C-alpha cells in the first residue's frame, strides 16, 4: 500500500497527491509515469509524475477527474492509501543542452511539463514556457512554472486570464520571431499536441510530445498502448511516452483512445448510481 502524504485541490476537478513511494522516488526522472491501481477492483491507469522528493521518498501526481478511476481517486484523502503505485515507467524525457527550448503545456499537463522545464533549465537551456487553460479558474502552478522558465506565456481559451486564444498562437509567433528555437516539448490533450506539432512542422523544429494512449500493465507486456510513429508500431509504455510529434499518426491515437467509450460510460454511470445510493 502507498500512503497519500498530502492532498491539494489545485482547481476544481484537478488534484495533487503526494504519495509515499520511496523506490519510485529514488529513480524518477522528468517525463516518466507511474501506473496506479486504487484497490482490488480497480483498473490500472497511467499518470505522469509531476514531481518527486528522493529524501522524503515521495512522488507527486496530478490528475483530473475524467472517468471512474480518477473520480474514485478524487475521493481519497491524505492518510488514505493506494493499493498499487508502480514506476517509474517509460523512458525519461531526453534532456540535453539544446539552446532555446519551448515547453508548451495544455490544461493540467502543466504539472507534467514542470519537471521537464526544470531539468531543461538546469541543463543550461533557455526555457520559454507556454501554459494554456480553458479559463482563469483552471490556471494553477503559474508561479511554479515561471520559476523554472526564462519567460512564461499564459493563455486562456476565453481570454479570462492572460492572453486570449490557444497555446499554438504564441508558439507560432515564437517560431516566426528572431530568436532561434531549438526544441519544442508539447504536452497536454492529444488534440493540443497534434496542433502544436503541426504548428512547428513548417519551421523544422524538433517537437517532442508525450503520448497518452490507454494502457494496462505499462511495462510492455500487453501492447494496448501501441501507437504508430513514422509508420512503425511502437509501445508508448516502453518506447515512449515521448515521441517525435511530427511522426505520430494522430488519427490512430484518437481512435484508439476511444476504444472503450461505451464501457467507460457504463462504468461511470454504475459508479455514480452507487454513489447516489450512499
Amino acid at each position: 500500500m502507498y500512503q497519500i502524504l498530502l492532498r491539494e485541490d489545485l482547481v476544481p476537478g484537478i488534484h495533487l497527491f503526494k504519495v509515499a513511494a520511496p523506490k519510485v522516488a529514488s529513480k524518477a526522472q522528468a517525463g516518466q509515469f507511474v501506473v496506479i491501481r486504487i484497490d482490488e477492483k480497480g483498473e490500472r491507469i497511467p499518470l505522469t509524475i509531476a514531481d518527486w522528493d528522493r529524501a522524503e521518498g515521495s512522488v507527486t501526481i496530478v490528475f483530473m477527474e475524467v472517468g471512474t478511476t480518477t473520480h474514485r481517486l478524487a475521493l481519497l484523502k491524505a492518510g488514505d492509501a493506494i493499493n498499487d503505485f508502480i514506476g517509474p515507467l517509460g523512458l525519461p524525457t531526453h534532456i540535453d543542452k539544446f539552446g532555446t527550448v519551448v515547453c508548451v503545456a495544455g490544461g493540467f499537463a502543466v504539472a507534467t511539463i514542470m519537471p521537464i522545464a526544470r531539468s531543461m533549465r538546469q541543463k543550461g537551456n533557455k526555457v520559454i514556457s507556454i501554459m494554456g487553460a480553458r479559463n482563469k479558474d483552471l490556471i494553477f502552478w503559474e508561479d511554479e512554472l515561471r520559476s523554472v522558465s526564462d519567460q512564461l506565456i499564459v493563455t486562456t481559451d476565453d481570454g479570462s486570464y492572460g492572453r486570449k486564444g490557444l497555446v499554438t498562437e504564441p508558439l507560432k509567433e515564437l517560431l516566426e520571431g528572431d530568436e532561434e528555437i531549438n526544441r519544442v516539448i508539447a504536452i497536454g490533450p492529444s488534440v493540443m499536441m497534434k496542433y502544436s506539432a503541426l504548428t512547428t512542422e513548417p519551421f523544422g523544429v524538433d517537437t517532442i510530445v508525450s503520448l497518452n494512449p490507454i494502457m494496462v500493465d505499462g511495462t510492455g507486456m500487453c501492447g494496448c498502448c501501441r501507437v504508430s510513429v513514422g509508420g512503425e508500431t511502437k509501445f508508448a509504455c516502453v518506447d515512449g511516452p515521448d515521441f517525435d510529434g511530427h511522426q505520430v499518426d494522430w488519427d490512430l491515437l484518437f481512435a484508439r483512445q476511444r476504444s472503450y467509450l461505451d464501457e467507460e460510460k457504463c462504468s461511470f454511470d454504475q459508479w455514480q448510481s452507487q454513489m447516489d445510493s450512499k
Partner: protein
Amino acid sequence: MAKLNLNRVPMTRQDPKVRGKNFDEVALGYNEEQVKAEASRCIQCPKHPCTTGCPVDVDIHDFIKAINEDNFAEAVTIIKNKNSLPGICGRVCPQETQCEAHCALANKDAPIAIGRLERYVADWERQNNPSTTPATDKPKPTGKRVAVVGSGPAGLTAAADLAKMGHDVTLFEALHVAGGVLMYGIPEFRLPKEIVQTEVDYVSSQGVKLELDAVIGKIDTVDELLNSGFDAVFLGTGAGLPMFLDIPGENLNGIYSANEFLTRVNLMKAYLFPEYDTPVSVGKNVAVIGGGNVAMDSARCALRLGADNVYIVYRRSEVEMPARREEVENAMEEGIIFKFLTNPKRFIGNDQNWVTGMECYEMELGEPDDSGRRRPIAKEGSEFTIDVDVVIVALGTTPNPLIAATTEGLDTTSRGTVVADENTGRTVKPGVWAGGDIVTGSATVISAMGAGKRAAADIHAYLSEL
C-alpha cells in the same frame, strides 16, 4: 504378476454446453474413490521411468505408493520435496509428453494419469492443511541473499528451492500480484487463481520475501541488486512482449494481443465488469490467430464472455497445432470453430477505426521448415474475408528487453533471449542466473520450473563456496 489394469479412470468435466457460459474450472478432478482406483493401476515398476520424464524430478512412484497406502500427507511431502507448485502442475503440465509418456503402461495406451493424481494430492492438501500435513523443518540460515526477478513458474520454483536451502530470498514481481503467466495468462477455468495464490502463499511460507509492483530495471537494476547485498540474482522474467503479424490494419480497435486480452480477463477480471473497473470488448465474431495453448485459452475466454462465433485461425493443419491435445478437444467440444490452413492477409476497419473483417489466404503445406513442421504457403488468388469485430493475436511472445537493456555484461541472442547454460542457468555475467521463457522463448510452465530448479541447485553450489 497381477493382470495389468488398462482402464484409465476418466476425469469428470463440466458439460460443454454449461461450461461455455461460466469461468468455473472445466476439469473437476478425481474424487477419493477415483484417485485410489487410478493409483492402484500403478505397477510400481523398479526403474520408475516416469520420473525421468519429469523436468523437476518428482518421485512419482513414491507418491503413488503413498496414495495406495492411504497416506495423502506423505504423498504431499514427497511431491513438495521436488515441486513447490503441485496444484498448478497437476492442471497445466503436458503430462502426456512428459511423465505419462514414460510410464510403463504408456505403450499399452493406458499410462497412469499422473497429472490427475498430483492434482488430487495438491487439492487434498489445500483442503486439509495445516492440521494433518507435517511441517517442513526450518533450514539453517546460510546468511546468503538471493534476488529472484519475476514470480512466474521459474521464479517461484527457484525462490522456494533456495529458501528451503536456507538462503534469504527476495522475489520481485512487476505486476500487482505474484504468479506471472499463471495469474495473467492462464484462465480461471483452466487454473483457478485461488490455487495459484495458495501455492504462492506456500512459497512465501518458506521464508521468501515477496515484493510486488517492483519493476527491476526501473527501480533497482540487476547490478544495483548485486551491489546492494544480494549474492546472486536469478532472472525469470519470462517472455512478456507480444508478437504481432505486421500486416495492414493491425492497430485497428478491437485487435488485441493475447497478452492484453488475457490480462484484461484473468488478471483484471474484466469478465466481472463493471463490478471490476477494467473492460474488455467481447464482440459477436471473434477470430483468434494462432494454434498454441494461448490461442485456445483466448478463444475459450471469448466464448465465455458471450461471443456468438469464435474462430481459431491457424495457418497449418490440425496435426501441426502446438496446443495440448486435451485443450484442443475442450475447445472443439465447446463449439470453437477451427479454420485450419488459413492465414490473415490484412484487417479491414470501419470509419470508427473498428475492425470489421479479416481478409485471409487459404494455405497449403510445403516442405518441412526449421521447426520440423511443414511450411505453410499462401495459395495465390485464394483470398476470402471473415466478418469479425474482435481479433486476438496469439502468435507468441519475445522477452521484454528491459532487463537486458539495463544490465551490463549479459549476453543475449538475436531473438532477445538471455544466453544461459542449459544445465545450470548460469549466464556469462558472474552472480547472475536465468531460466524459463527469458532463456528459451515461449515454452511451458513445467519447463520453466525445471530451469528454476536447476538454477537454484547451481546457485546453492555457488553460494556454498563463497
